[in-house]
């Protein structure tokens, strides 16, 4: 039996996905299916005066047109599911269909149900809505000023919550030798999963069951929320996520669209499908980031960082989305010290509502915002005290001996050797030589820059006790059932809900290794509340750490029971049985053995089972991890800047990551590449813009630059392995590291290149025009 853990097996799921045989929600067709099309507000803020549906109702193929008036008494409000403690959070009442006020462009006011998607859209165009436009507010810091338009009457100065953590640090700052102050703008990003969102709902008249196929990262959370909103008990509600084409956080939330499709399916007794267009995806599917951060760092003249604090205004959009309040608080504020041993830290966050698309988790969720802040501040500090940025990092990184390390907010960093990854990156780069080259090139009017990011992040979201303590309205454990069929083939049911990450393969590797059976004999089943008892889904790089942990424990239960049966069969006591490579054998007598498959068959035939052992063979585990996991690493980017055009050319990118134990190195590599591209995309290309009236100016792929493969050099990756003690597999999580680490590495590199021009910082994305203009304004510095 060959080793399968740690092998770069090709992905199981690709057999169907690459050949176009995947099944996405929109691929589903049901008998009698009809189509929903939403009528959406063209205004960012307006009162609805009237909705005239008559013309639309008379259009061919139209079954019904419903407005907010029709749904408001039949549907609950769409809630947020994260209420950070000590934050004074106010709910933003969010009806599925707006009936009095619309609060962002795209807010749905009516739905048309018709026999064909074309008819639905034609009729939606005929719904006449009279609006009274109101003034809009889009910028998070402006929104809290006096006299600004109020997005929700019940939310004074648009402050949905004010969350603080950490002590008053005025004294520390007053006494500090060096204080660096800076303001950063985390621009707004649009996740752009390859597959837009979709929902298909079917009501079963006989059983009163509603089934909803929906593009979700967490079907059980969806069921939980839909159950409350629709008033359908959970045992009569089934949520299915078949193939889901990426989410990046944007498919965590429960949205009005699936609520309305579900409600209409029950009302009309017809299967109702709703599918988002790419345009709608830009307009209504949750966005990411969008902070203004006022940051201060205190340190000594010789490079010891003493304190970091931030006051942040986080734009949450028009309504508090499902996980939104947790992102700029727990997932951001608690880790602003990054990988550094900084004794003092505090964060002060305003969660602000505006007339924009709701903002929620986006790959990294909070941690990129924190990492950018600290990694940029370290560079600004280094520059101010004229130290090399690497030297400052070396001096302040948490030492390998210090683990478990408790950060200023009480987070316990599990394990690590931060200097170790930095050392490898330095060697791969040949840093001193590159600095010499840089100096020589500058003399020729050529500008290259080197940018570092020595990050840590927290992921593997769980345990549930912490979830409760930080106000997440759910658990963060995971379930797994390993069901061995009579022939020894295995179905694994996981509460995690992978949607492109490759766990159908990695999970099979875990089980295959432990049971000593071929991975081809293992099927990973996920994304269906009817088949999986419970689960909390895939986000926060938790799937392998928590979901994988549950699978490991369930597999161990199977082995435990099988061992009993094997001992019975081999007529020895259980303690004399060893299990290795799929074979149970008698210790010391290796030829007295019986295979796992033979034991399985015995378990099912049950002709002769040991005392007290039940027939069949399966194990179920509900696993709650001990703590978060903390992947870390050192990234470095080398860029050149063309002063004539402001073009930034990424010459090299080195990522040395420690994500704990690695189950499938190819999949890990893929996750890192994808993360890097998204993080670099934020640094250089992506940025959603609104005008002052709340119109999204970057509303399509023609103007919003999702990075293309050709923009990038070959990434150079390396690893160290420091297992996490917080879960049985020793894994840490890799889904978000690239997106968390790379953004500041790039910006640090560009600022390093621009150093001769006296340019310290520019707002992201660093478009060529911005860079060129800054060079123009600072020509004197050259």
């Amino acid at each position, binding site marked *: 039996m060959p080793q399968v853990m740690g092998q770069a097996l090709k992905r199981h799921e690709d057999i169907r996905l690459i050949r176009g045989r995947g099944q996405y929600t929109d691929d589903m067709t049901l008998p009698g299916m009809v189509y929903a099309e939403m009528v959406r507000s063209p205004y960012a803020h307006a009162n609805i005066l009237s909705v005239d549906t008559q013309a639309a109702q008379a259009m061919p193929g139209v079954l019904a047109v419903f407005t907010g008036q029709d749904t408001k008494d039949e549907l609950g409000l769409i809630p947020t599911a994260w209420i950070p403690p000590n934050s004074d959070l106010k709910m933003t009442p969010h009806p599925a269909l707006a009936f009095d006020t619309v609060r962002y462009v795209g807010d749905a006011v009516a739905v048309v149900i018709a026999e064909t*998607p*074309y008819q639905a*859209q*034609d009729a939606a*165009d005929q719904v006449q809505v009279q609006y009274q436009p109101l003034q809009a507010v889009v910028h998070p810091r402006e929104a809290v000023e006096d006299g600004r338009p109020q997005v929700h009457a019940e939310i004074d100065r648009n402050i949905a919550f004010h969350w603080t953590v950490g002590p008053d640090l005025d004294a520390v700052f007053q006494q500090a030798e060096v204080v660096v102050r800076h303001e950063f703008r985390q621009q707004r990003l649009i996740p752009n999963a390859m597959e837009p969102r979709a929902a298909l709902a079917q009501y079963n008249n006989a059983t009163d069951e509603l089934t909803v196929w929906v593009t979700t990262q967490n079907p059980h959370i969806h069921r939980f929320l839909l159950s409350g909103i629709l008033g359908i008990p959970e045992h009569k509600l089934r949520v299915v996520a078949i193939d889901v084409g990426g989410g990046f956080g944007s498919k965590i939330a429960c949205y009005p669209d699936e609520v309305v499709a579900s409600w209409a399916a029950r009302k009309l007794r017809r299967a109702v499908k709703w599918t988002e*267009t*790419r*345009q709608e995806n830009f307009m209504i599917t949750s966005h990411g980031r969008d902070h203004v951060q006022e940051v201060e760092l205190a340190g000594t003249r010789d490079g010891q960082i003493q304190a970091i604090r931030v006051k942040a205004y986080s734009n949450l959009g028009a309504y508090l989305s499902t996980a939104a309040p947790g992102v700029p608080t727990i997932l951001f504020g608690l880790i602003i010290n990054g990988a550094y041993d900084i004794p003092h830290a505090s964060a002060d966050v305003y969660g602000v509502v505006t007339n924009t698309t709701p903002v929620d988790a986006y790959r990294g969720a909070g941690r990129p915002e924190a990492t950018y802040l600290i990694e940029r501040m370290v560079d600004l500090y280094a520059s101010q005290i004229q130290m090399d940025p690497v030297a400052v990092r070396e001096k302040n990184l948490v030492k390998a001996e210090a683990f478990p390390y408790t950060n200023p907010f009480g987070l316990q960093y599990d394990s690590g050797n931060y200097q170790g990854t930095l050392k490898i990156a330095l060697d791969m780069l040949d840093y001193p030589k590159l600095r010499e080259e840089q100096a020589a090139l500058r003399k020729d009017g050529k500008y290259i820059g080197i940018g570092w990011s020595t990050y840590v992040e927290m992921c593997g979201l769980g345990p549930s006790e912490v979830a409760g303590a930080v106000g997440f309205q759910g658990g963060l454990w995971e379930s797994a059932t390993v069901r061995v069929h009579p022939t020894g083939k295995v179905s694994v049911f996981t509460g995690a809900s992978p949607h492109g990450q490759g766990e159908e393969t990695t999970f099979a590797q875990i089980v295959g290794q432990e049971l000593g059976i071929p991975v081809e004999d293992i099927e990973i089943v996920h994304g269906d509340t009817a088949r999986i008892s419970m689960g909390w889904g895939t986000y926060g790089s938790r799937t392998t750490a928590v979901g994988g942990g549950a699978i490991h424990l369930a597999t161990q239960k199977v082995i435990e029971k099988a061992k009993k049966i094997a001992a019975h069969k081999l007529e020895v006591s259980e303690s004399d049985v060893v299990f290795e490579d799929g074979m149970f054998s008698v210790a010391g007598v290796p030829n007295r053995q019986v295979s796992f498959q033979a034991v399985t068959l015995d378990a099912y035939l049950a002709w002769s089972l040991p005392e007290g052992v039940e027939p069949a063979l399966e194990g179920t585990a509900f696993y709650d991890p001990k703590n978060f996991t903390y992947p870390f690493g050192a990234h470095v980017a080398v860029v050149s800047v063309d002063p*004539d*055009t*402001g073009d930034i050319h990424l010459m090299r990118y080195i990522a040395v990551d420690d994500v704990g134990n690695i189950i499938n190195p190819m999949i890990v590599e893929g996750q890192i590449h994808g993360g890097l591209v998204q993080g670099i995309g934020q640094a250089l*290309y992506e940025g959603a813009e609104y005008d002052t009236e709340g119109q999204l100016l970057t509303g399509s*792929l*023609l*103007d*919003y*630059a*999702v*990075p*293309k493969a050709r*923009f990038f050099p070959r990434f150079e990756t390396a690893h160290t392995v420091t297992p996490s003690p917080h879960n049985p597999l020793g894994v840490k999580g890799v889904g978000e590291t690239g997106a968390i680490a790379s953004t500041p590495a790039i910006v640090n590199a560009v600022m390093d290149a621009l150093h001769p021009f006296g340019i310290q910082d520019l707002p992201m994305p660093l478009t060529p*025009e911005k860079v*060129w*203009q800054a060079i*123009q304004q600072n020509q004197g510095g050259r």
Partner: protein
Amino acid sequence: MLTAPFEFRRASTVNEAADWLQQGTEVKLLAGGHSLLPLMKLRLAAPAMVVDISGIPELHGVIAHDGVVTVGAMTRHVEVVKNPLILAEAPLLSQTAAVIGDVQVRNRGTIGGSLCHADTAADLPAAVLALDAQMVVSGPDGVRKIPASEFFVAPFVTALGPQELLVAVEVPSMPSDAVSTYLKRPHPASGYPVIGVACWVGYGGATVRLAITGIGPTVFRAAEAEAYLAAHGLNSSSIGEAARLAAVHAPVEDDITGYKRQLVSVYVSRALQHTAKGKN
């Protein structure tokens, strides 16, 4: 992303297409569909009738005679890239078509469709303008020719009458000593040119053509730079001044930061340098 209802027709002759066009104003011709269909799917265009012209034999084919290459309006970008006659007689056209969009776009999109759509940021207008091409147009009053310099009137507006269609593009053969370059700066999102500079030098340096797309409201010639280069020759010392002249005279709008003129200067300079290298 679903179109409004429309009537669909297939024309098999130019006259038949012209007849449909005369039915009313809400008729659109469909060539490769790569500009028209996105507009219709976004419901930014909702023609009552769409007439497919891809089956009209007169719109197909590339021929060369009397120092002119005639390229049928339905010639796909991919064909413009590879066609031996175009490569021999008007390589600038091939060079330009080669960097349009991606493979799928080049496989479907047509030269006629691109020119008639007259997107501010289309690539091919630069080439046809630099090559002094003539648009062969058929309408109710018969066939007429419109010089490229008069064809692009405003963003998405051409000199084509409402009942006319483009039959072919006539491109004068480039001289045998001609060297040409099309230099494009793709937009990071759309891939369309932020600026595209088409340039060629020939007749021993006596003729220099520079046409610029993407950055102004329509494609334009850098006439002052052309004249300067014709007078001073294309060499490392003249390029800087030519680039400066092109930038100063470029009809760019809303250039608050000066970046657009800067790009004109840089891209004209780079295109000329590249051309000068090929010349030696």
